[in-house]
């Protein structure tokens, strides 16, 4: 009986997952617990690069092409683009991300404007200014509150891959 139940729930979860990804590679609106889930990572997992950006943030937009470059250079690294645009601008953010060729399965928008409640969860070193980028490897977080220039991100990832 237990086995049947297990199989059933497995099937169900596969079905749900398929449903979710069927509407994909589009931007997903998430809240803080989901952000926390995205930020969990353990030893041996893929390196994760989480970039916090917004359509109104000029330095963010300037650095995005470097993330796209790095993305093609390191196919084994997971790139996540966390928009902090207001949720009513989700379509705008999505269109923008598509135009910029950002990894479609890594598009999220964090819909929680009580920033003080979650900024420290990303990193206690984060002032709240963007652009900001979190690199995760083997469960460790490396936080960068800066605008990346050409080649800098690649260097960092290479260093982490060593």
């Amino acid at each position, binding site marked *: 009986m237990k086995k049947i139940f297990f199989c059933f729930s497995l099937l169900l979860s596969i079905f749900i997952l398929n449903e979710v990804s069927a509407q994909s590679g589009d931007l997903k609106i998430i809240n803080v617990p989901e952000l926390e889930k995205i930020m969990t990572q353990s030893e041996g997992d893929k390196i994760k690069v989480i970039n916090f950006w917004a359509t109104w943030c000029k330095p963010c937009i300037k650095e995005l092409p470097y993330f796209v470059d790095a993305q093609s250079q390191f196919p084994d690294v997971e790139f996540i683009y966390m928009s902090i645009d207001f949720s009513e601008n989700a379509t705008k953010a999505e269109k923008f991300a598509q135009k910029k060729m950002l990894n479609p399965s890594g598009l999220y928008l964090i819909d929680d404007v009580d920033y003080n*409640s979650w900024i420290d969860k990303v990193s206690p070193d984060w002032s*709240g200014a963007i652009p900001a980028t979190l690199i995760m490897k083997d469960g460790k977080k490396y936080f960068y509150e800066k605008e990346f220039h050409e080649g800098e991100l690649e260097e960092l990832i290479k260093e982490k891959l060593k």
Partner: protein
Amino acid sequence: MKKVISLSLVLMAILAFSFKKGGYEVGDKATDFSLKNVNGKMISMNSYEDAKGFMIIFTCNTCPYSVAYEDRIIALHQKYVDKGVPVIAINPNDDEKSPDDSYEKMIVRAKEKGFPFPYVYDETQEITKAYGATNTPHVYVLDADKTVIYIGAIDNNTKSAENADKKYVEDAVDALLKGSEVPEKKTKAIGCTIKWAS
């Protein structure tokens, strides 16, 4: 030899960390300034007689988060100016990096919105560095002696003033006026990075 290298690496890291930590913490005494207001006059805190404190707000024309808070900054000033705690808004952005934050554009924006408080330009960015502001809007509430009693966000809902259930700056100023402890002394908020001159 390896030990020496790793030790110096650690030292460097500590140094880098301590350099990064510029700016004020709650309890520090803040510097006064003399910065040009949109009406051409120089503004400093010492020119306010009988002030019981100040709301120093680093903000600008261009950041959507600053714009979202403009009406709330006006309301803060109107609520507290007669009680002796005025707003002084400081634009910290370099006008080469962000042309729409130029002094001329500040004059235009102040007029459009009818700012009832001084909107001054930190052209050299020295005051911004001294305070340690990182993004806009970024608030420092000071007491009459210019001691920092609060650093951070205006409230906890950038989108809508009505939906904010924590009004950090109001709570800090109310505490200052009552002579009680500031309930939340430091908060963080998403904002636009300050555009530093290169």
